[in-house]
């Protein structure tokens, strides 16, 4: 038995693009704000039977955040700024992706289902910028006091992301309107492998809360 349906989703991403595990030279995250990161998407569902199915989808979504962290001996390289930085690093990032999730789905009850799978996302545009503040840089040729040095790595971003997704759908009112929560774990850094601007791999780790309509 084949049974097709469509799912239309509107959601908000909430999370961070961060190194995992968090290295110990990021000593404290002093501030974090998620920003508005909307997502719009559609899934094409195909149910094999009453319990299991698969879906493929398209997402137009934003992921982003702002943070401020104190760092110690943190390797940074941009313009005239090369070496190990000790101080505060402000970061502001925002990525617009066209995503393609492929998910396996399992229905527990009529109004509760779970899903898991993988996604590929193509970067349409992105911003990754900030500043190193209030500290000093060990340049290898001595200490340089740093008041504020801005960086902008927006043109150095990797043009895609890929990762794993899990989530659940809940239909509280009827068989059309659903609430969805999913968790998406990027497996590749937002920067290419040869990038040296900052020392860490930065992975997209975002949760998303959506409302959906099932056709």
């Amino acid at each position, binding site marked *: 038995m084949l049974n097709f349906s469509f799912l239309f989703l509107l959601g*908000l991403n*909430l*999370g*961070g693009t*961060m190194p*995992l*595990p*968090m*290295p*110990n*030279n*990021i*000593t*404290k*995250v002093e501030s*974090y704000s*998620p920003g508005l990161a909307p997502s719009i998407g559609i899934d094409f569902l195909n149910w094999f039977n009453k319990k299991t199915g698969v879906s493929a989808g398209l997402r137009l979504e934003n992921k982003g955040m702002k943070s401020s962290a104190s760092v*110690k*001996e943190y390797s940074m390289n941009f*313009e*005239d700024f090369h070496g*190990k930085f*000790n101080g505060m690093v402000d970061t502001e990032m925002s990525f617009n992706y066209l995503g393609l999730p492929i998910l396996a789905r399992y229905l527990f009850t009529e109004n509760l289902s779970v899903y898991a799978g993988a996604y590929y996302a193509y970067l349409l545009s992105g911003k990754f910028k900030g500043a190193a503040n209030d500290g000093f840089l*060990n340049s*290898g*040729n*001595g*200490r340089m006091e740093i008041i504020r040095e801005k960086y902008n790595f927006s043109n150095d971003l990797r043009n895609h992301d890929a990762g794993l997704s899990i989530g659940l759908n809940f239909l509280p009112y009827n068989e059309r309107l659903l*609430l969805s*929560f999913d968790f998406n774990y990027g497996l590749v850094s937002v920067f290419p492998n040869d990038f040296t601007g900052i020392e860490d791999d930065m992975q997209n*780790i*975002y*949760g998303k*809360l959506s409302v959906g309509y099932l056709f």
Partner: protein
Amino acid sequence: MKKFIMILVCAGVFCSCSSDSEVKSSENYIEEFKVANISAEIRNDLNQIYIFVFPENYESILAAQPSNIKCSENATLTNSGGNWTDKDFLYTVTAENGEQRSYRVYIDIARRKYSFESWGITNGYYSPSDSNSSWSSGNPGIKMALQILERDAENPKSYPTRDTTDIYGGAVLLETLEGGNVFGREVYLFSGNFFLGNFNVSKAISDELAATEVGRMYTAKPKSIKGYYKYKEGPGVFMSKGVPEPGRNDSCNIYAHFYRSESNITLSVKDIDKSNLVIATGRLPNCSETEGDEFQPFELTLNNYKSEPDFANHSYKLAIVFSASKNGDVFAGKIGSKLIIDEIEITDY
């Protein structure tokens, strides 16, 4: 629900970083080195400690022991054993994280008179040597530019600053030469420069003005700098960033600054004019074309001291700077302008 997600995400961010061991500092520098109350100039880019002494103090420095050596926080200092003035003696600084850096000590005579008789050709260009080795030029930076422009970087005559034999024997020739596109940046001309100080090659790619670190330790209060110069403007039209400005004359630039400097501070031509560390300045007011083929005497007088030098508590550097085109730093001048200088003599109060 949304609050719950936020807590989840934030908890991940905050918790995963607190349990690991403390990050240790990588700084392994000697920050201050004093012997017989004379501060050394510390060159971290070369791992060298320079002590400039006047001839009359040379013997007493050799007999003294360094009294105050300060290194980076949490770093430890060891040495190779023997007397600190031995040729192979090394000071080794071990950073908190274990990275080591070894410094060699050089004791050099601070001179009050320079005749520029001795030069060496290294890496394709002229460098002042022996008794003149406190002087530098931008030639090491020009070498990179010449290679990019595919000019003959092995020919000393391709460089704006070079030796010339004139009526007083060896002398310094500074010439303004045609530039080109270097690392995607339009460098319209190379103005020959020559200065008491050091050209820091590690800074030269991104900023040749910041690489021009002017000044050497000077342990007396300078009164005047005398010398001889002659200046001929280039044959063509004055050019400013590649735009001709007919009728405008080129001029040279000769000046001196005396400034307060703790051992790790050296001002560059980029910041020295605005620095409040400068306590006295002397400048040749009119450095335009000289008549005939004869050398003219010049004198820079340092009589405008903002404060008296406090040699007991601070160290000071004397910077003397020459350039073939006064506005060469903003790529303005005449190609072919030539400044020749010789017989520099410093007198103290």
